[in-house]
């Protein structure tokens, strides 16, 4: 009896959960109507997105979100996300845009669409100077920490030998904590995250070992939202032409944005 009621409740709940995903091509109109642009941003990824001493998110991605909202003439609502849940936020329309150090690859293109790139980025393997890592084969027998669902997780899973023990953590802060506390010997992460970590923990003697992937950051939009994507492309292209994009990159990364793929 109880079991039957349980099943009936589950059956009723399923369509309720699934129904809010039924729009396409409306995101731009909805943003303009609500006068708010909801942007998924990182808070664990300095200098792209991190929490400042005033406990407010700041960084290149946050400035970019603000910039696009200003150009659209709407307010920005920042939604902090992790590497693993930023794509579900787009899929379930909890965010209009993902500006969260999002790299483009074929797997992701199946489920969301990408506007053009706005900033440079690369992921690499880092470890203590005393640990010899000359190639990916040297990772065999070592523990490697990586943030689950990030580009470096997917690439490393392909590149690392089967003998490497890959430990996946929920977000970059946990991955960095695992490395700093010695729970993993090697860390695979974005160059900016590693840079901030090395600056804060000079006693570890961490150094750059191997590049995993050059992967500029793109702006993610939900699948099929071509109107919103075209509008974002227009804004980013104009920012590139006016030099605003380079100014942002210089402010946060210390160098211009350079050549970025369309």
């Amino acid at each position, binding site marked *: 009896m109880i079991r039957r009621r349980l099943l009936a409740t589950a059956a009723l709940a399923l369509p309720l*959960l*699934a*129904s809010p*995903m*039924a729009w396409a091509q409306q995101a731009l109109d909805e943003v303009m109507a609500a006068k708010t642009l909801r942007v998924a941003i990182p808070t664990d990824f300095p200098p792209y997105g991190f929490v400042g001493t005033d406990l407010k998110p700041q960084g290149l991605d946050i400035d970019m979100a603000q910039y696009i909202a200003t150009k659209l003439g709407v307010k920005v609502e920042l939604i902090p996300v992790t590497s*693993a*849940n930023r*794509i*579900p936020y787009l*899929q*379930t329309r909890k965010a209009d845009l993902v500006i969260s150090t999002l790299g483009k690859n074929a*797997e*992701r293109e*199946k*489920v969301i669409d990408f506007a053009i790139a706005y900033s440079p980025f690369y992921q690499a393997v880092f470890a203590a100077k005393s640990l010899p890592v000359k190639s990916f084969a040297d990772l065999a027998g070592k523990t490697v*920490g990586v943030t*689950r*669902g990030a580009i470096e*997780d*997917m690439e490393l899973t392909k590149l690392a030998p089967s003998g490497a023990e890959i*430990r*996946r*953590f*929920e977000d970059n802060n*946990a991955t960095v*904590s*695992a490395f700093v*506390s*010695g*729970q993993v010997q090697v860390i695979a992460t974005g160059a900016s995250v590693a840079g901030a970590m090395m600056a804060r923990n000079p006693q570890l003697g961490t150094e750059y070992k191997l590049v995993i992937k050059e992967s500029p950051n793109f702006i993610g939009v939900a699948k099929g939202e071509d109107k919103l994507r075209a509008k974002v492309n227009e804004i980013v292209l104009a920012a590139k032409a006016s030099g605003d994009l380079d100014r942002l990159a210089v402010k946060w990364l210390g160098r211009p944005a350079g050549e970025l793929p369309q």
Partner: protein
Amino acid sequence: MVQLDFAAVLVEWPALLRGLGLTAGLTALSTAGGLLLGVGCAWARSGGPRWLGLVAAGYVEVIRNTPFIVQLFFLFFGLPGLGVRLSPELASVLAMTINLGAYAGEILRAGIDATPRGQIEAARALALSEAQVFTRVVLPPALSRIWPAMVSQIIIVMLGSAVCGQISAAELSYQANLIHSRNFRAFEATIVATLLYLALAIALRRLLSWAGPRLLFGR
């Protein structure tokens, strides 16, 4: 309407099975350890020496008034600072055991307090030693009284093990999260994980309700 594609998740069944296995294993070990710890705690607080009772009270208060994830992070990220490096699996078992021990101790103490004084005095009058009084006269009826509450607590700890994926212990929710960060089928992966947890919880409740009276305290 979104297209649900459960096949994309279910094709990863070996990973889900491994996750389910680790969740069950973590729960089994921490249940055994947690119950022992709980019995010790309940004894210390109800009949043991005063100093031990105070130690147990401190332990119970610290554990019951802090979040499980903080306890877990302390063991995994904090202890290496003191030179103790635990594997994610060991840290998980330890955190779950310590967590269950505190709650089990308090649940059991309620059962012990409900034992009529006369029963204990009768046992002493029959010249049973203090140890015999506790293990033969006090504990079995106390366990039998509180067993349903204890089973619920064990299931709460089993469900709480979903957090252990945060320190890369590859239990069920870790595997489900890994699957959907690969194929972006977050909705389906979560539904599958939910159903597996539901099945595991129901099975565990049945097993413990069956095993308790037969193995622990007799009917």
